[in-house]
């Protein structure tokens, strides 16, 4: 039997090789001769992933084998594509990957058991909201949205990214508490089964607060992400689709109201419906994205060989390294490469939900499910936006977009998932049961079944 960690290492190797080959491919397309520039950085990123692997061996040896290699693959392709767009951005990002790796290892070290988080749910929830408040008060407005906090040296932090993970932890703990109340509605309001307000009230208040903050921050993407994750977790906790549908209806009504009030959103929706009507101004990014994707075709010209950067150094889509990262990859690697990335994210969330299903307790299930839904929804929101499936909202593509806050947050998120995976597989937390106990439990179960049949 191969140990989970050995299997992980076996899958990390092709991911690493792919990254190095990609770097070489870009370098050969870029320069006349051999360019050694990216080699130290690439080896450094490789070392970071090996360190993360070693940390898992020591702290969570039984954790899922596929998460880290998949993250490694997405990170590698993201870095290669960033290097292709701008070596400076790639160097920056490689440094952030190192920070993310350190945070990943740090989480593994300081948090042997994720269930302690349950105890600090309100502190964590308030911290999440606090980060948003700080952004609202001290934030710098970039491209119309106030998302960034300047921390000196020209560096900015996107606290909303960190808030995201904290809010999922809070919701997992809170919903686990109120799960029974949510699952068993006590009354109906306008035909909709409604749990007692004592259970739902605080959640709605919390949600309204975070949504309100996001509207103030003018960040529709994050608002949509928060709402989606909230509805997904309510569904996980209650098993009732009615809540999700109710939430979506409320959201659609709310959006219609916001649509008329916030011009930014109206523009986004217009661009989605008719991007070619204003192809030189408002629709420019989306139209350029579609042009690039069309040029990439089925097979793509190869890494470093598509027309993504003009002679003057500007990118064909202005937000190419951030929001439009997927466009860059799918253009150079074609439809085949684009589908590969999508399948990579699919593997990621599949593993995440397997971890949630295998977890032993409600909090772990909700936390793993919520974190996984965050990654999945975020990927769908931004990829759907750049290929005009849905209106474009500015969220990052996890593990691939340029941006330190995003990388660090998502690495921490993966660390949490792996801790949950390890805990559920090691059986820790569930009281160990001896053979005699087991026989007694089996007898009790048979007894209960007989009673049920008698009643029927």
């Amino acid at each position, binding site marked *: 039997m191969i140990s989970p960690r050995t299997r992980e290492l076996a899958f990390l190797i092709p991911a690493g090789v792919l990254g190095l080959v990609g770097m070489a491919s870009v370098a050969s397309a870029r320069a006349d001769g051999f360019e050694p520039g990216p080699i130290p950085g690439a080896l450094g990123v490789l070392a970071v992933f090996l360190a993360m692997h070693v940390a898992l061996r020591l702290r969570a040896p039984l954790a899922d084998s596929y998460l880290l290699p998949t993250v490694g693959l997405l990170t590698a392709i993201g870095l290669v594509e960033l290097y292709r767009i701008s070596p400076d951005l790639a160097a920056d990002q490689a440094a952030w990957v190192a920070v993310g790796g350190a945070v990943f290892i740090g989480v593994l070290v300081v948090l042997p058991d994720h269930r302690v988080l349950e105890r600090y749910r309100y502190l964590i929830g308030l911290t999440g909201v606090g980060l948003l408040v700080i952004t609202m008060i001290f934030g710098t407005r970039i491209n119309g949205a106030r998302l960034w906090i300047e921390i000196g040296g020209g560096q900015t932090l996107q606290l909303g990214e960190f808030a995201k993970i904290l809010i999922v932890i809070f919701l997992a703990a809170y919903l686990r508490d109120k799960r029974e109340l949510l699952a068993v509605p006590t009354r109906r309001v306008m035909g909709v089964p409604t749990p007692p307000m004592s259970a739902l009230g605080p959640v709605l208040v919390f949600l309204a607060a975070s949504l309100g903050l996001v509207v103030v921050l003018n960040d529709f993407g994050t608002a949509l992400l928060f709402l989606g994750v909230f509805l997904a977790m309510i569904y996980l906790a209650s098993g009732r689709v009615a809540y999700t549908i109710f939430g979506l209806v409320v959201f659609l009504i709310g959006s219609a109201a916001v649509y008329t009030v916030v011009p930014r959103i109206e523009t986004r929706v217009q661009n989605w419906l008719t991007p070619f009507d204003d192809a030189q101004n408002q629709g420019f990014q989306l139209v350029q994205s579609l042009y690039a994707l069309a040029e990439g075709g089925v*097979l793509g010209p190869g890494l470093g060989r598509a027309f993504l950067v003009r002679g003057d150094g500007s990118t064909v889509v202005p937000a190419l390294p951030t929001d439009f990262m997927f466009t860059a990859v799918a253009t150079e690697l074609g439809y085949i490469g684009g*589908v590969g990335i999508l399948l990579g994210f699919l593997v990621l969330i599949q593993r995440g939900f397997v971890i949630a299903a295998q977890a032993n307790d409600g909090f772990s*299930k909700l936390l793993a499910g919520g974190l996984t839904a965050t990654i999945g929804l975020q990927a769908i929101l931004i990829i*759907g936006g750049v*290929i005009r*499936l849905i209106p474009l909202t500015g969220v990052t593509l996890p593990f691939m977009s340029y941006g330190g806050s995003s990388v660090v947050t998502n690495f921490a998120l993966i660390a949490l998932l792996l801790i949950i995976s390890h805990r559920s597989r090691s059986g820790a937390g569930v009281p160990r049961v001896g053979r005699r106990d087991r026989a007694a439990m089996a007898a009790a179960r048979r007894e209960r079944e007989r009673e049920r049949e008698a009643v029927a």
Partner: protein
Amino acid sequence: MNRSIRRLYLTLAAGFGLLILMLGYWQVVAADGLKDRPGNEQTAQADKLIDRGRIVSADGKVLAASRAVRVKGQKVFQRLYPQGDLAAQTIGYTSAGAKTGLENTYDRYLSGSFGTQPLLQRLNLKEKDGANVEVSLDTRVQAVAQQGLSGLRGAAVALDPRTGHVIALASAPTFDLQLAVDDFDAIPREGGPLLNRTVQGLYAPGSTFKAVTASEALESGMYTPDSMFPGGSEFDTPGGPIRNFGGATYGPHTLTTALTFSINTTFAQIGDELGADRMGEIMDAYGFGDRPPIDLPDVATSGRRQDGKVLPNDDPDEDTARLAIGQEKLAVTPVQMAMVAGAIANQGRVMAPRSTIRVISRGGSLVQRGETEDLGQAMSPSNAAELTSMMEDVVREGTGTAAALSSVGVTVAGKTGTAESDDPNRNQAWFIGFAPADDPVVAVAVVIEDTAETGGVAAAPVAASIMDEALRVAG
């Protein structure tokens, strides 16, 4: 809770399924449509990465070629047009996504996107390069044609009547083709140099159309070259009387004489007697009303035109007397009139005009041949021979003496035309013809815009110089 987890997973997986479908739509289904949208920077850039094939003239001169240059470390190809303003509109240019002329027609071959080439290129089994196109234009004849038109506005077409291959397509004014790729806005636009008048310019044909009428006169069996006409000074029609050029009055004369001196009243009478059906038939046979099938883009259709539309050739309401002398809404392209001259020269057989001989791959293998195309018999060979000798008289002693090449011992057959306008300085002067009359190797059509001269004075000498050079080149 595991059931909810599975359902949530399936919901998100369905979302990814939609992403895969939508991505496929843009990258596969809608890709070609997006690439063709004007202003698509990607397409323009993709063109620069292709080592486009050469366009080479019949006499081996490079008309268009690509040169590799490095821009910011990236290898791109620059299009070169070494012949300057020679046949600029016909060769065409490729810049910023726009393609004209031969660069447009043969883009598929020049850019290497024919057959299995795109697949091989994508798999990196082949360089991105295109095939070479060998055209039938001869730079020496082309230069003489442009020389004859220099300083004027007009067009000249020379073709081999036996095959339809064009030898020269000159449109004046012209422009430096290199400017079209280097600095498009620097091209002086005075006089419409971008217009390829040979295939896009529509002119009143004037008396050159009498060659068409004469063809049907012989084909109908109603007339012979010796048929007699009473002459006079005008011919009455419902649309008003038709008079001769300069108000001349002629005595009784033959059909040959009528053509030689371009007698309007006689041809008006013939047109009137032939009627709409017969006039329509001969116009159909020569190709009027159909787009000339030449391998160039945006070719205009000759015929009776009104408000940009082409009317049927055999409209019973038309004034066939006026039609017979080249009036009555007639608008024709020089290439169409060259087809008429070519058909008479080619024993009545109409050949489709062709600008290309063949397409050759970089490896030297034949990709595509510029097949000649027979469009049918406009008139019998014997009638063509009779019309030829009538047209010899035009050049020997009639209105077209300036087209004669008797100094080099060659007999020329031809017909002049002068389409008058209200402004005496704005005539359109025409000459169509071919040489040598007994064994033609070149047929021409020349038109000069906005001149005070007649076709015999302004256009015939230009046609003579072109035919002279074409004969010299043909040996």
